[in-house]
């Protein structure tokens, strides 16, 4: 597909058009107004943009599958299984690509480590990291917010929590991006399986020795916890641990980086909101929820129908694909008052930024904690974070809402 022009495209079937990628609020509004259960011939599936349908879709585990190794999404992966066996084998142990009951097994063994109560112990360390990272950015004319803050904070936090060395974090980032290309169906990238396989190899080679070392000498980290976890007689295999450590390295920083930076853009777009959280630090909690609603890191996630059913008069057939568009649902005026207003005090705010149902984001409590601490400290120290990048451009992916670059200036109080 050629690079789209700057003009808004009328093409509702192009989910990677300039408009869809860079102006999702107008794009998904047009989709929702046209048809909340829209058949997209190019993507070959249904695009759901109303809150009620998207939320119900996330909860409908009986009829809507997340499995990437069965159904209409499987061909792409299993067709590559022979050549990229290790990549496919490990991806096949990722909880978010599995249905019950295997999902229940994987999630049960790790859920405890990511509950709000468990991650709370990380708050002082996160606070310290936020200070350390922000300090050198004072008085600078231009700060690369993605590279110098938003990427570093989450990758260090998740690496330390897991017990994986954070020194090689730039390597971790590259591997994560290469795996992301496989998972999020960046169809235009012909080498994605090749680079994805190399990334998986690199990560497995890094993590397997750590897993083995923790088996004999446990430390106070998550890998040790996973190695020795025994929930009612259930245990992880070594490969299950490695696969899900890879998943957490990957899922634990890319999305949080986007949460932090999308929030900075939202605060900058709505004058006075930054001052609001500075004056009332308790508001940071609701403000983070509002960032997740207004411009969360995930645009939408795909499912497929295990059986046929009817939805708003449309006949969904067995094996049909469905894209549950969280970004669309989070701006649905039927559910949210003044959805285009970024309101840090909005409450209640039952956004779908983390999804719903059994696949509800495992790392949600940790992401919340990091964003709360980051905005709390930065709003206390600085009177604003001014966005300098004039034309904000986002990466062309179906699932994530991620900036290509974000230059800012920290304004001193």
């Amino acid at each position, binding site marked *: 597909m050629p690079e789209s022009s700057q003009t808004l495209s009328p093409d509702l079937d192009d989910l990677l058009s300039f408009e869809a990628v860079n102006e999702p609020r107008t794009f998904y509004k047009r989709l929702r107004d046209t048809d909340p259960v829209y058949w997209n011939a190019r993507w070959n599936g249904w695009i759901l943009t109303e809150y009620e349908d998207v*939320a*119900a879709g*996330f*909860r409908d585990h009986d009829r809507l599958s997340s499995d990437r190794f069965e159904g209409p999404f499987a061909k792409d992966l299993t067709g590559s299984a022979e050549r990229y066996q290790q990549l496919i084998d490990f991806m096949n142990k990722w909880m978010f690509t599995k249905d019950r009951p295997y999902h*229940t097994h994987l999630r*049960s063994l790790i*859920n*405890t480590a*990511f*509950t*709000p*109560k468990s991650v709370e112990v990380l708050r002082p360390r996160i606070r310290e990291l936020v200070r350390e990272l922000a300090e050198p950015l004072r008085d600078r004319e231009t700060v690369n917010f993605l590279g110098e803050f938003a990427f570093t904070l989450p990758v260090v936090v998740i690496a330390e929590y897991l017990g994986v060395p954070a020194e090689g974090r730039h390597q971790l980032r590259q591997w994560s991006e290469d795996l992301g290309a496989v998972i999020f169906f960046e169809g235009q990238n012909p080498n994605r399986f090749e680079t994805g396989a190399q990334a998986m190899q690199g990560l497995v080679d890094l993590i397997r020795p750590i897993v083995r070392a923790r088996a004999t000498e446990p430390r106070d980290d998550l890998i040790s916890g996973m190695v020795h976890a025994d929930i009612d007689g259930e245990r992880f295999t070594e490969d299950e641990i490695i696969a899900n450590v890879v998943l957490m390295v990957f899922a634990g920083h890319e999305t949080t980086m986007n949460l932090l930076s999308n929030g900075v853009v939202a605060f900058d777009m709505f004058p006075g909101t930054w001052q609001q959280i500075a004056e009332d630090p308790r508001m940071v909690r609701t403000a983070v929820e509002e960032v997740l609603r207004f411009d969360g890191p995930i645009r939408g996630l795909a499912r497929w129908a295990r059986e046929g059913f009817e939805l708003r008069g449309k006949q969904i057939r067995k094996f049909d694909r469905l894209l549950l568009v969280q970004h669309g649902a989070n701006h649905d005026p039927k559910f949210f008052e003044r959805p285009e207003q970024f309101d840090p005090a909005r409450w*209640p*705010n*039952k956004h779908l930024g*983390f*999804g*719903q*149902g*059994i696949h*509800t*984001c*495992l790392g*949600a*409590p940790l992401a919340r904690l990091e964003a709360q601490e980051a905005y709390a400290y930065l709003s206390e120290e600085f009177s604003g974070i001014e966005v300098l990048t004039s034309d904000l451009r986002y990466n062309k992916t179906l699932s994530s809402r991620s900036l290509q670059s974000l230059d800012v200036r920290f304004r001193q109080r």
Partner: protein
Amino acid sequence: MSEHSRMRAVVDPDLCASASQCVLKAPSAFHLDAKGVSVFDPHGQWTDAELTKAADACPMAAIELIDAEDSD
């Protein structure tokens, strides 16, 4: 047995994300209603330990435990 228990649970429907961890940890205390929101059954055959596990497991911190004696 719930008759001997001192605990009760309150689910905040604005926070509940239907992750179902509470149903896994304390199946006789929680079920999801038609809208997917977790509902607590004060008369179920749960134990205090199960209730604590369920509340701790909730990724949204949507379950608050209260002392029944305080609330009655």
